[in-house]
């Protein structure tokens, strides 16, 4: 039995670039980097509830001098406890078990956590050519599932095969779209331990003693199989039927829940009536441009209002107006995904995790544009009720800037600019994008009726609002960050058109890290984000296939997650 090189090349791909360092000699002491032990599919940080490593799962270790300079993979059963001179020990007190490496290189190891590994906090030590590394902590759990992703980042399109026939099971993508009612096979790792050895061909059959559920666009999917993949130790397959009532779209969120409480990473799959194309119900023109590689330009304005009442002496509201303009020609790629534009369908939620502080500039993989921006000429001019402002780029790397602000308690007098009214944005033309003039309206903002304070993560949370304008799109965006472990999570839910409330399911909330007793060690904020319908107007300019103006409002509040 041979291992799938496909899978392991995928799971290697993402992180190597982040951890690539000059490698010392083969005799240098191995070093496991801090916070560098993850589920090999999800890369969920340790500070997130789903950040443990399951017994019997494949995990990744990153560091230096961990193995041979040129990576080696296993090729046949039985698997050994050494690969290319690399061994991995799992130590807890007087108990030591050997992990089973399936890939070893100087900077990364992928290995199977033995099914009999001790539960709880343990330590990993790597030996390479008899030189031992430092110990690194790992939290071993019974079940913590990760779904492999096509981009190798733990988010975006999942490794999900559309079942057409026994010999025709293409990987789902925006050009290989599944239909409602179709069977699909999802690949991951971490369902749980097996009885018997992990180093031989795994037992086939549903894994006993673990309840497996799959949710597609938030809809529970019938399970056809959940257990080890026959080919590969440590790898799991979950075969499910795309629910008939699952929403359609290009990036429909998919996640797995085990034993009723453990939530996996969220990946996406394309679902629609066509087998080769997909559409989204939110900004479909943007989606089409992103997938098909046509030129797109946007002139966005935004008002962000945040009510701070956690970790402050007295509540304070900070409001700021911003602008962002950009034009790109996205590359056509097999698995297009950018978390900033890959919207889930209305009525569903998606969830991302990241090592770092997303509220302080650590962006999700794939969020940064990969192409050179199109030249739009000199800065745009925005004219509205409060006069005119040149939309200069105040910050490096983006044509974005600050237009005005206000902080309550007399901390900052108002210089707000984006008040409701009629606006004209004018472009003067550049090398790639021609001149244009577009009028749009900023409406009166909606009212968020029940801003939460202390949130029980085990219960559904319903948010309600009133007002706004017709055609508005409401998204609920929530951040949960655990600073000491540098672990961030963010969710985004899209409310159905015309809805005046949305209920965030517990599966979203429970995977946010709890607020620390010292609230300054957490950053937990929920936003109600509104894309106003009346602000969406076309920019008609040469060089742009798709051009849009739009106004977003963000109303946020700090929260305590219990």
């Amino acid at each position, binding site marked *: 039995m041979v291992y799938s090189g496909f899978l392991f090349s995928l799971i290697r791909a993402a992180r190597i670039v982040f951890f690539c*360092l000059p490698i010392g000699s083969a005799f240098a002491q191995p*070093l496991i*980097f*801090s*916070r560098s032990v993850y589920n090999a599919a999800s890369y969920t940080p340790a500070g997130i509830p789903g950040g443990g490593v399951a017994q019997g799962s494949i995990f990744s270790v990153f560091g*230096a001098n961990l193995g041979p300079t040129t990576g080696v993979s296993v090729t046949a059963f039985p698997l050994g406890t050494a690969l290319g001179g690399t061994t991995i020990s799992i*130590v807890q007190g007087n108990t030591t078990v050997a992990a089973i490496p399936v890939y070893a290189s100087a900077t990364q190891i992928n290995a199977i956590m033995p099914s009999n590994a001790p539960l709880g*906090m343990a330590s990993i030590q790597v030996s390479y050519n008899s030189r031992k590394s*430092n*110990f*690194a*902590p790992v939290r071993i759990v019974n079940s913590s599932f990760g779904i492999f992703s096509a981009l190798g980042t733990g988010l975006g399109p999942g490794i999900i095969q559309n079942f057409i026939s026994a010999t025709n099971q293409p990987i789902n993508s925006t050009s290989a779209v599944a239909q409602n009612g179709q069977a699909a096979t999802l690949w991951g790792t971490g369902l749980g331990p097996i009885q018997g050895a992990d180093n031989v061909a795994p037992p086939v059959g549903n894994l006993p003693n673990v309840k497996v559920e799959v949710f597609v666009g938030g809809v529970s999917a019938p399970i056809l199989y959940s257990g080890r993949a026959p080919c590969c130790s440590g790898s799991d397959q979950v075969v499910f039927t795309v629910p008939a009532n699952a929403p359609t779209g290009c990036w429909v969120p998919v996640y797995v829940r085990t034993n009723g409480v453990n939530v996996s990473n969220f990946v996406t799959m394309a679902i629609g009536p066509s087998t080769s194309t997909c559409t989204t119900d939110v900004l479909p023109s943007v989606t089409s441009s992103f997938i098909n590689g046509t030129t797109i330009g946007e002139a966005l304005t935004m008002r*962000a209002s*945040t009510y*701070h*009442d*956690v*970790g*402050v*002496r*007295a509540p*304070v509201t*900070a*409001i*700021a107006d*911003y602008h962002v303009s950009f034009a790109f020609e996205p590359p056509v790629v097999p698995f297009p995904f950018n978390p900033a534009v890959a919207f889930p369908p209305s009525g569903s939620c998606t969830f991302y995790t990241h090592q*770092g*502080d*997303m*509220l*302080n*500039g*650590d*962006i999700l993989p794939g*969020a*940064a544009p990969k192409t050179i921006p199109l030249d739009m000429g000199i800065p745009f001019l925005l004219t509205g009720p409060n006069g005119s402002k040149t939309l200069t780029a105040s910050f490096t790397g*983006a044509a974005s800037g*600050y237009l*005005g*602000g*206000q*902080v309550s308690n007399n*901390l*900052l007098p108002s210089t707000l600019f984006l008040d409701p009214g009629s606006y004209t944005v004018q472009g003067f033309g550049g090398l790639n994008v021609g001149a244009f003039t577009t009028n749009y309206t900023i409406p009166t903002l909606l009212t968020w009726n029940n801003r939460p*304070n*202390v949130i029980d993560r085990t219960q559904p949370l319903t948010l309600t609002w009133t007002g706004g304008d017709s055609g508005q799109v409401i998204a609920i965006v929530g951040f949960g960050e655990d*600073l*000491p*472990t*540098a672990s961030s999570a963010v969710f985004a839910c899209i409310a159905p058109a015309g809805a005046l409330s949305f209920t965030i399911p517990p599966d979203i909330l429970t995977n946010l890290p709890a607020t620390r*007793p*010292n*609230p*300054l060690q957490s*950053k937990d904020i929920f936003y109600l984000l509104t894309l106003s319908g009346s602000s969406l107007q076309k920019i008609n300019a040469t060089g742009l296939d798709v051009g849009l103006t739009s106004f977003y409002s*963000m109303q946020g509040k*700090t*929260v*305590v997650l*219990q």
Partner: protein
Amino acid sequence: MNFQLSRASRMMAAGIGLSLCWFVLEACDCEETKEERFPGYWVACIGNKPALMTYVGDSATIVSSDPAGNFNPSQWDCSNPNSPNYKGSQAPSYSSSTPSGPGGYARVHRNASATGSSPSAYLPQQLRALPFLPQIPPLATPPPCDSSYPDVLRPIHTQAIVTRVSTCPFAVKTSIPVQTRPLQIAITPDGSLALVTSFDNAVNFIDLSMNKVVYTLNTGDSINPNGLAISPDGTTAYVSNFTAPGQSYIVINIANRTVTNTIPTIVQYPQGLTLTPDGSQLWITTPLYFGVDVFDTLTNTRITSLNISYTTDVAFNSLGTRAYITSQSTTPGTVVVVDTGTFQILNTYTVGNTPTDISMSYGDQFLVVNNSVDGTISVIDLLQNQVKTAKVGANPSGIAWVH
């Protein structure tokens, strides 16, 4: 007392983060010099050679001579490295192998169990780093004092006491007797207990609700407690044993008030102990030796030793991804920036002479460094990548944030 109002704001792809209304309390008693109040010197054997030492800030420092000029290396026998022996008949009144000097400061934690249902319980006057906030100018005047300002605890080394000081207004509230020669202090996360190291073989447990020592843990003659760190969960304390050879740190079960482990260190005369924010690593500095030891706290095994000399203190950013280490290996001194993931040195900032303490502001923009010998404080603006050093007089020692 010196207040510095600082502000942090940054624009990243995700938006702007803001820090506001932070007060840096520079803990310097400017009316007295340390030499007047803390005249202590001692002789230690460093590399089998006698060295005259004193405390500068929290850092034991080798000096060439005492103020009276009585120190003569040839009069000392270091054949037994742990016990320098005075050979002359006119022995000066040095206390052998025992340091003296002021200790560090620690802020009394607020009630950390508050929830959002009681916003006023969240006492730090701080806008949290959030996206999309405007830049806000500093307040013209600081807010008036109120009862919510925290207290600061200060060990007085030569008087065997710990003083509890209110920070607004700045005044001593009470003095707490402790074991002789207290050095450093740390407070449990729930704010209920303070631990104080005394060089004279003890760790003091102070109940902060009663302001009295409720237990004194005797560490034995071979342990000279100095540096101190408490785990984020409040269960474990780590105390450095300032000696060589036999250098180590001890692990204390706070609930049981017992020493559960003694771990040898590579660095001699380990002094400063700092835990990463998640408590997974213990970084150990020494002002008298080469290297910084980094230990894994789950196994109490050494992860690595960094090649940075004569170090005194470590600060981490809130994520624990960067370490900022004060080094006295050059004049002026430096702050060395280390990637805690890879342990690679990323940058070095030049600060004042003999940096001894370092602390990071909330929001990760400002580092404050005490430079004991030249009586200055350096403020490193990590966003602007600038260092400003200002004279404050005397010998600043210890940093506590009031927010």
